[in-house]
């Protein structure tokens, strides 16, 4: 280790390790092994993939926040950089905190000028070790990753048995691979034990802070929610970052949805020709009484908007899982944002409003996906699950998934053949219960009653074509009433009061959750107290307006440029914009507690809060 001016960072169970790799080099599984090993030692971790829109050869990063305190948001800053990619060497080195550590492959000499003198450099000849051990070039490459995990495990004082057990679980059915992986792990361990001082200032120490929590990707969880919620039709078109959701649905269905007796599938998955066809199929299936959903991201939503308008107007259940990425246009396909709020809330031409759900983590992805299928049937309208790349494509520690066995599917207002036969009045677009929601029938129900013509044009309450103003007004006002009824059905906001009375509050939603919780803790330490409200759905229940009214200043924390939730709040509630201060983070990386904390304290310390200012992410 090089002697430096800066005192080496000392931290137990509270630091950030970042792996800089080349994509397609097989680093992903080794990095995941590293993160999961720490988790198995009872220490929470929060890993994040920062990857390119590419298959092989471009830079990719994997950042692991080790956090006994359970702060699962991105922290910002790096304590230990595992620099495996020469292309990004300079930028990667810059990111290391003073006193931090650089781990690199020193098989080939690197000039001293390429290092920093305020960090601690740890060289391990990974290439040399692998070249000596393997002849096959692919093996040399792949095992290099496991060798560095082995080296790091000694440097960070991780338990070897835990890693070995994980490898054993992973290669349960492939004993050959198991042995060679364990061997590679030990090559790394032995080198460090023999040649380097260990452990370094950063250490992992067994703790008991994980409990029975699970480690899961949001896309996986949303797919499982769709299985539990009874979706039988999934029509989708590949798009990052949502593809893995449809693919997870497929693998869960292959496991849990094949009729044991007949071997036949109780599901259908269609990879459609585009997003327009995907949503079209979902509309067709929903119209015909099957639970159906699609998974997509921003550009897909743009393509789907005409159908979304049809489903709104013709009142057809549709579930859309939107895993948001950076927009507009192709934007940042592999980076995260919450920037489709307005385009989804008001999707399609004419006066439209749609129900949005905002899951905060994989557990809520599961719950909201299942809830969306119920809500779609109950409200007979499109329901959006507004996930994002940060939740969708990263493994996140969350509470275990739960399912209430007594819960059936809410199929909403569907008139049966018996009801029709008994002479019950059927008007497809007739509001009989005062909640704005009409009854529908499934095609093929009754030989002479209950059939109707579905269309996107104006109609009367009995589904007859009409160009009459009163018929139009009856219909669109009923749709508005229905939207109002939705307020009580959607997941309600979560309010957390500060320890003392305060005039300040913050509203946030979705993947901002863990960073927000940490920021509130930090601010509290600085004697700044904020009440918080986490939005879980649109339409906003009236309690949101009441919460805003109770405070002098409300910070609206979002991951987009234009403060879209703020616009929605102003538009829907008619709130004085000066009251709502936007805190915006939108460079494509997940929002951090540091960013939120600094932005809020800067804003509070600013002399005149009455003038709305925007607090944005600083240019890097």
């Amino acid at each position, binding site marked *: 280790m090089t002697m430096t001016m800066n005192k080496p960072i000392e931290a137990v169970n509270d630091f950030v390790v970042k792996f800089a790799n080349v994509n397609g080099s097989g680093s992903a599984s080794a990095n995941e092994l590293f993160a999961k090993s720490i988790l198995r030692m009872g220490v929470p971790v929060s890993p994040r993939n920062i990857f390119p829109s590419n298959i092989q050869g471009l830079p990719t990063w994997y950042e692991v926040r080790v956090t006994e305190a359970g702060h699962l948001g991105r922290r910002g800053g790096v304590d230990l950089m595992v620099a495996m990619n020469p292309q990004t060497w300079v930028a990667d080195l810059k990111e290391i905190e003073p006193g931090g550590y650089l781990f690199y492959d020193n098989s080939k000499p690197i000039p001293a000028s390429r290092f920093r003198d305020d960090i601690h450099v740890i060289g391990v000849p990974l290439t040399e070790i692998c070249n000596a051990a393997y002849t096959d070039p692919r093996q040399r490459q792949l095992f290099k990753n496991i060798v560095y995990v082995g080296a790091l495990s000694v440097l960070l004082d991780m338990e070897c048995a835990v890693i070995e057990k994980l490898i054993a679980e992973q290669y349960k059915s492939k004993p050959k691979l198991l042995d060679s992986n364990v061997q590679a792990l030990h090559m790394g361990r032995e080198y460090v034990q023999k040649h380097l001082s260990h452990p370094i200032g950063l250490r992992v120490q067994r703790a008991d802070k994980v409990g029975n929590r699970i480690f899961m990707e949001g896309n996986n969880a949303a797919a499982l929610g769709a299985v539990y919620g009874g979706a039988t039709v999934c029509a989708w078109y590949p798009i990052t970052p949502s593809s893995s959701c449809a693919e997870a649905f497929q693998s869960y269905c292959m496991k849990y949805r094949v009729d044991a007796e007949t071997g036949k599938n109780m599901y259908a998955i269609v990879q459609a020709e585009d997003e*327009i*066809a995907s949503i079209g199929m979902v509309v*067709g299936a929903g119209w*015909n009484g*099957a639970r159906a959903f699609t998974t997509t991201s921003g550009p897909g939503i743009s393509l789907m908007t005409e159908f979304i308008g049809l489903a709104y107007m013709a009142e057809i259940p549709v579930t859309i899982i939107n895993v948001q990425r950076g927009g507009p246009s192709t934007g940042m396909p592999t980076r995260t944002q919450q920037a489709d709020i307005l385009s989804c809330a008001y999707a399609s031409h004419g006066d439209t409003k749609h129900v949005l759900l905002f899951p905060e983590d994989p557990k809520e992805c599961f719950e909201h996906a299942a809830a969306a299928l119920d809500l779609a049937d109950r409200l007979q309208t499109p329901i959006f699950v507004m996930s994002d790349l940060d939740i969708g494509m990263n493994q996140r520690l969350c509470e275990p998934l739960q399912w*209430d066995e007594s819960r059936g599917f809410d199929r909403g207002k569907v008139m049966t053949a018996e009801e029709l036969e008994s002479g019950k009045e059927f008007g497809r677009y007739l509001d009989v219960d005062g909640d704005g929601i009409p009854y529908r029938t499934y095609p093929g129900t009754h030989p002479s009653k209950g059939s109707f013509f579905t269309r996107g044009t104006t109609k009367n309450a009995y589904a007859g074509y009409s160009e009459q103003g009163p018929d139009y007004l009856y219909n669109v006002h009923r749709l508005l009433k229905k939207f109002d009824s939705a307020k009580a059905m959607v997941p309600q906001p979560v309010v957390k009061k500060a320890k003392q009375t305060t005039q300040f509050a913050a509203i946030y939603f979705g993947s901002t959750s863990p960073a927000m919780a940490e920021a509130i803790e930090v601010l509290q330490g600085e004697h700044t107290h904020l009440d918080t409200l986490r939005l879980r759905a649109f339409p906003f229940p009236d309690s949101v307006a009441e919460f805003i009214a109770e405070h002098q200043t409300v910070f609206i924390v979002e991951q987009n440029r234009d403060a879209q939730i703020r616009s929605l709040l102003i538009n829907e509630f008619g709130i004085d914009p000066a009251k709502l201060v936007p805190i915006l983070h939108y460079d494509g990386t997940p929002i951090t507690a540091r960013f939120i904390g600094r932005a809020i304290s800067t804003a509070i310390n600013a002399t005149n809060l009455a003038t709305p200012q925007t607090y944005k992410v600083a240019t890097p």
Partner: protein
Amino acid sequence: MTYLAKPKLHHPSLTENKACHTRRDYEGRISTLCAGCGHDSISAAIIQACWEMDVEPHRVAKLSGIGCSSKTPDYFLGNSHGFNTVHGRMPSVLTGANLANRELLYLGVSGDGDSASIGIGQFVHVMRRGVNMVYIVENNGVYGLTKGQFSATADQGSTSKKGVVNADSPIDMVSLALQLGATFVARSFSGDKKQLVPLIKAAIAHKGAAFLDVISPCVAFNNHPGSTKSYDYVREHNEAVNRIDVIETKQEIVVDFAEGEVVEVEQHDGSVLRLRKLKVDYDATNRISAMNYVQQHHAKGEVVTGLLYVDNEAGDMHEHINTTETAFNKLTSKQLCPGASVLDKINASLR
């Protein structure tokens, strides 16, 4: 004027079919199309075919896109559920509907603008997937509802009512369907009910993607000299390759043509298509020769009609993806939800 109910006068002498329905039960609202529109003849042919096939009207789902042709599902099968979707996107809605309930008969009605222009992508893929359906394109080569613009099926060199010459080469829906793997491909003419009704019946009997291109002249905008989709042009250039009868179960053939001229094709449902050859060299069970024949005759300005191709052993989308026989919309939460104990196991695997 479709909000006006059509008077239901049940004449006692109207005969009932095996489903205990009279022809009246297959009718819809009063058509709002122009007098003499080919589309109304197709609606009448659909009514007759369904009645003759003893189809239960409420077991039909009729779907369409946008345009004159797409308005027609309102004018037949009034007891069926109908869906007037968005322009060019009926195929995806029909696909989803079919996935949700495989027990209904799916009838897709579209036009040449709807299927060959804006919706050609969806047309292509619905054929590839082998969705079990009857897909009718009411083909008039023109945008009627927006008053006379060319569609993508208009022949190169044909003229519009205003005298504009169409410069683009046409899309031949039949050739396209053949190439895409449709397992039943036919072309007919709205003015030839004798040919059209049996073809619709045969398409209903077919299990798989059945496509019918029906030339249907637009009396308002495309029935003038210079049009190749006018009544006169199609009558003069119609080259029927065969005539068919659909027989519900295999019966002894009462031969009224010379031997060698009749081919029988048994369908999945046990019904038999009896093909009477009008062109000796035409083989309706050979996709490649069908494609050749259609192309060669199109080059001569002829409109080849009849049953152009049928694969009587075709499967449909549900077979391809191995779905359960039960309609998805009848599956219960017990069948679909794996339950709490499975979830506990999944949780355990994620630690």
